[in-house]
């Protein structure tokens, strides 16, 4: 187990460097960011040259990348064009997005798995068909439609909530945005669980468990679910990374100032330091989430051993 973890951690190193280099190059292809800082006019050449020097933009790209990575390892992610440290931006943005992601994942797990179990156990019944239809609708409607619709209905028409999230972004305020963010994944989780449950329901060990006279609840939670959840866990694990980085649309609709907002603003303003910094952290989150998922397999399925 320990060796497996170490091997996986070592594998992360090339992935990490490759991913950051790719982002770095992509942001650079967009061109000189200083030109966009002076409004509808040419930056005066002296100030522009000075800014380029200060942000290290006058050096060749490989040099910039090395210098940047060197700084990252000392915890310095550079300074955004508005003079704020990128670490400062991260300190405000990540807690918000993590809260939002937690809300979304809780919805995925609670509603997604519950619906999956219900439909999986009653395959072909009206419950099953109607939930299937519902998930199909959710999957096919884009997030921004569900988001704007809920915002308009709950926020403006019925007045149940504030249409936008306040700067504190408390957990309670994030429930609707979290639901919107989770909606598509939630539908997938339902479908995955359903298929998995339906398949395993006929497995020998389930029949044995029932034959032993175990109560139905125990058969489902202990025997059936535990085995059926492996693909679902994989999905949710990778989804955590996707939810954190992919919340741009949801964050925009509900005015949540999290990672998505900083990335969006960073890209619009070609703020290399912000974009590369945030994406680097997201890459790390993604890698670690994947590792945790793989380790969880062993817990769920004793047959899986890591050496």
């Amino acid at each position, binding site marked *: 187990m320990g060796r497996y973890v170490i091997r996986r951690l070592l594998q992360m190193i090339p992935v990490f460097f490759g991913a950051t280099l790719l982002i770095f190059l992509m942001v650079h292809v967009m061109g000189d960011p200083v*030109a966009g*800082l*002076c409004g509808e006019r040419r930056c005066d050449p002296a100030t522009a*040259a000075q800014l380029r020097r200060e942000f290290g933009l006058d050096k060749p790209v490989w040099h910039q990348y090395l210098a940047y990575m060197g700084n990252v390892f000392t915890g310095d992610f550079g300074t955004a064009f508005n003079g704020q440290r990128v670490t400062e931006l991260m300190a405000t943005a990540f807690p918000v997005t993590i809260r939002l992601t937690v809300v979304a994942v809780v919805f995925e797990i609670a509603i997604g798995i519950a619906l999956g179990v219900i439909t999986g156990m009653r395959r072909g019944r009206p*419950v099953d*068909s109607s939930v299937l239809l519902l998930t199909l609708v959710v999957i096919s409607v884009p997030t921004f439609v569900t988001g704007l619709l809920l915002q*308009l209905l709950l926020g403006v028409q019925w007045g149940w909530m504030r249409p936008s999230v306040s*700067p504190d972004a408390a957990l309670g305020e994030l*429930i609707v945005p979290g639901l919107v963010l989770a909606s598509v994944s939630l539908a997938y989780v339902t479908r995955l669980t359903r298929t998995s449950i339906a398949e395993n329901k006929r497995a020998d060990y389930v029949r044995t468990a029932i034959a032993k006279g175990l109560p139905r609840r125990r058969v489902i939670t202990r025997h059936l679910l535990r085995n059926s959840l492996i693909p679902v866990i994989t999905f949710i694990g990778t989804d955590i990374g996707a939810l954190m980085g992919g919340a741009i649309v949801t964050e925009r609709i509900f005015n949540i100032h999290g990672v998505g907002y900083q990335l969006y603003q960073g890209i619009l*303003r070609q703020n290399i330091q912000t974009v590369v910094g945030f994406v680097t952290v997201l890459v790390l989150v993604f890698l670690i989430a994947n590792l945790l998922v793989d380790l969880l397999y062993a817990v769920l399925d004793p047959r899986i051993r890591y050496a």
Partner: protein
Amino acid sequence: MRGARPARWAAGAAAAALTAAACGGGGGGSAPGVLSASWGDPQNPLEPANTNEVQGGKVLDMVFRGLKRYNPRTAAPENMLADRIDSPDSRNFTITVKNGWRFSNGEPVTARSFVDAWNYGASLKNNQKNAYFFGYIEGYDKVHPETGAQTADTLSGLKVTGTRTFTVRLAQKFSTFPDTLGYAAFSPLPRAFFDHHEDWLRKPIGNGPYRVASYTRGFKMSLRKWDGYRGPDKARNNGVDLQVYTDTNTAYTDLMAGNLDLVDDVPAAQLKYVKNDLGGRYINTPAGILQTLAFPFYDPRWKRPGTQKVRTGLSMAIDRNLITRTIFRNTRTPASDWTSPVLGTAGGFKAGLCGAACRHDPHRAKKLVQEGGGLPGGQVRITYNADTGSHKQWVDAVCNSINNALGDNEACVGNPVGTFADFRNQLGRHSMPGPFRAGWQMDYPLIQNFLQPLYYTGGSSNDGTWSDKDFDRLVDRANAESDRASAVRLFQRAEGVVRDNMAAIPLWYQNGNAGYSRRLSHVALNPFSVPVYDEIKVG
């Protein structure tokens, strides 16, 4: 229907949790007499000489008062901190600061507060993006050389001659120089700005009607009425909470739901419904913004004599009335000169100066384009940035107009660029394949500001590198003219040169618009399309 039950249960639970959260959360303008207003994250640090966009400008307008202030209604430059500004020759100015003004930390505003601030703004090492505003002052080439290291720290043209007086010597004659002093870059700065710069940036200190109570960067700024303010324009409310919105649509939704009091940029998509939604609580007033199509004169195909006919033809092909009415819902007005109505006739605005060249006339348009040798390359590609505003819609509409007039579906196509920064890059590299979007928001309400930066040889925003000796000569003469009316006449003659060559096609004058809640009254926008916060009454 049993399957739907869990979903409904979840929605119910979510709603219950939300109402609970809403009770604890508290609304936007919860403090009495304080209004909440939409804001965008300022692009640059909030230093006066480093702020060149409207969002940072809003804050500076509340927190600072300069020597002059532009009247929020008439745009006329009026003395604010300036007691008097005298000049014998339009080149040497003696400025006397009024007595009794203070910064909100108690420090008195003196001549030195100005001179230090201007020196800071001009100095290359401080990276101030508005440094060129000090370019008229003698010694600027030493503190801010085009290339190489700076050889001086302070402008030799600035001298403190007393606690409340200082002198300014310009590098050349510039009669309307005092009228430019209402621009935020010329604001005075307290010692705290220099001595504790980081702290100052976290919580700016100024001499305006409001003081910054708290500032969470990227989220919210709370400004409160400063009771020690002695100026004539004291705040009539207790404060303003500026809230950052990523999307103007969300701000508008918040206004509808009663969580926000003031939105100063109604999104284009909502303009259709705004009358229904807000009734009389929607304002749409002219701002000092002109949209034009400029041309790449570095491209020999556009420089060739005779192409002015092609450009005039293109101008006449555009149905400005139709586009401003249908796409912009009258938040733009068809342009008929190269300035803005906010200048007023005395200030140099002259409706109809463009004449027939700005009137929709498809037949003459087609004829002129043919006389001028046809479109260079057989097609014009209008370049614009697609990330902000509704540029795509109007560029497509303009192209449609041109195609209809010329009877050729391929005559004009849009050429979108992903981001504004990239668009500016391509402009800087002189790689425009054809006409391009050129928007101009005035820095100060003078006709000079609508002409010199854009069409003077080497002007800071002359992105098409248009150059004309007659134009330059007229502008020089106008700047040296001490009589305001004759200066304006000379500028208008220079504008005539722009027209005769159709250096840029004027499209429309842009309005500022805003919507507000029932709690507010006396809401207005100034000519810079910034709300006049201090006049707003709450409740």
